[in-house]
């Protein structure tokens, strides 16, 4: 047995290793959480299959598939981050990790890496299933680039909003509110239901939502159109959300 030597020996692991370790751990913990899996994968898959079997409210596969990818970004970026972070705050995980070499900035970087890992998995599975069901996207180089930009900007915006809720409310309140907002936006945020299907009177308001920007932008990109409007909407939302999250987030419960 190796002797236990408590003699102080200062030293942090390299920053990239710390961030990657954290990201991999968070992603692994998410895969063990049934509720989080329901949000990130089961519901989007259900909508995808429902859209394929029944050409109802969600429209044909050309509309449903990119909509579901937008939903995946929303569920991971907003709902999962809000709920997970709220409980991390309540359990003192944030408190503990902020006082390690990971630090506050490393924790945020590690969370970002976890989100990238999770979303890569989501897109791979959801797009793979959509293609298997008959989806034939018609991305151009430009529309694919815009789609990627929209996903990055929208996810970052969603994360900031999720962190704001998690950093201000109690964990149970965050759980309830984040799920409620998830459902409200699912139904009314032009995320999976195209904007044109909403009453004309409310379209200008919905169009200004970050969820609508992502949903509309991805649906257009998947058929070869690169829209500038959604990029502008998100260019307004992202710095505003980041500023509010930075001001409002609290590390301790």
């Amino acid at each position, binding site marked *: *047995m*190796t*002797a*236990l*030597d*408590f*003699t*102080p*020996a*200062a*030293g*942090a*692991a390299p920053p990239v*290793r*710390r961030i990657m*370790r*954290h990201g991999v*751990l968070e992603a692994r*913990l998410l895969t*063990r*959480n049934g509720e989080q899996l329901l949000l990130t994968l089961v519901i989007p898959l259900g909508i995808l299959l429902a859209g394929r079997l029944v050409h109802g409210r969600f429209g044909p596969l050309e509309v449903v598939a990119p909509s579901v990818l937008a939903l995946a970004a929303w569920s991971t970026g907003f709902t999962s981050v809000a709920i997970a972070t709220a*409980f*991390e705050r*309540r*359990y*003192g*995980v944030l*408190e*503990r990790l*902020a*006082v*390690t*070499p*990971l*630090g506050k900035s490393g924790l945020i970087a590690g969370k970002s890496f976890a989100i990238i890992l999770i979303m890569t998995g989501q897109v791979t599975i959801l797009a793979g299933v959509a293609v298997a069901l008959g989806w034939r996207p018609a991305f151009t180089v430009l529309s694919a680039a815009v789609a990627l930009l929209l996903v990055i900007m929208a996810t970052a915006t969603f994360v900031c909003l999720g962190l704001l809720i998690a950093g201000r409310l109690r964990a149970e309140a965050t759980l309830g509110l984040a799920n409620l907002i998830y459902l409200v936006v699912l139904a009314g945020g032009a995320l999976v239901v195209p904007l044109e299907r909403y009453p004309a009177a409310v379209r200008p308001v919905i169009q200004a939502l970050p969820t609508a920007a992502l949903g509309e932008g991805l649906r257009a990109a998947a058929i070869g159109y690169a829209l500038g409007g959604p990029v502008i909407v998100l260019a307004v939302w992202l710095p505003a959300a980041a500023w509010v999250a930075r001001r409002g987030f609290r*590390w*301790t*419960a």
Partner: protein
Amino acid sequence: MHSRPADPLVVDGLAVRFGRQMALDDLNLGAKPVGLTAVLGPNGAGKTTLIRCCTGLLRPATGAIRVLGKAPGSSSIASRVGFMPQSSGAWSGIKAGELLNYLGGLYAHPLDLRALTDRLGIGEYAATPYRRLSGGQQQTVNLAAALIGRPAIVFLDEPTAGLDPHARRATWHLLRDVRAAGVTIVLTTHAMDEAEALADLIYILDRGRVAISGTVAELTSSGQNLEDVYLAHTRAPVGT
């Protein structure tokens, strides 16, 4: 009790306000090198707030803190500071061994995980999710997590709260070994016997201020025991 600038912890004129309530009010305190400093006080006296300021989690309204000669929370001392929060400090779904392995990976020279878990008896429940551990097992894992990076100074917020007598004594023994290895320990506690058995220096807080401080011998020199000294210098928490 005056601290010197070279001490591993120097707290000078610290004030923290939450709304209209003063959590800390002109608090002065220090920890000697390679010793165990115990901070006592009733609920709401400011012990956890003090620890949070010392670890950079809270920014005081006024006053100054130096930890190992640097500002709390600065990256240059992050790997030299260990911390055990009062709350669990762990994800509910993480396994005990997985948590320690992850935390050890954040440091360049962590303690040997196998030796640490053997010493603390964590091995038998290392594969158990944190939420299924007993309160005492969770405390033990938390203490191991605070020590795994081989810190020079460690802040422990009520490290033996909720432990049975056997586990408490095992923790005391461990803390003596940690101190003997050259680590400065700052802990908060409600247990007079714990402070008496372990502390080189004691601060008794009352409503955000140091009410009295000294070694056990100094505090009890008038013939009173430590609990009598504590009761004489503190007021019951508001509302009790």
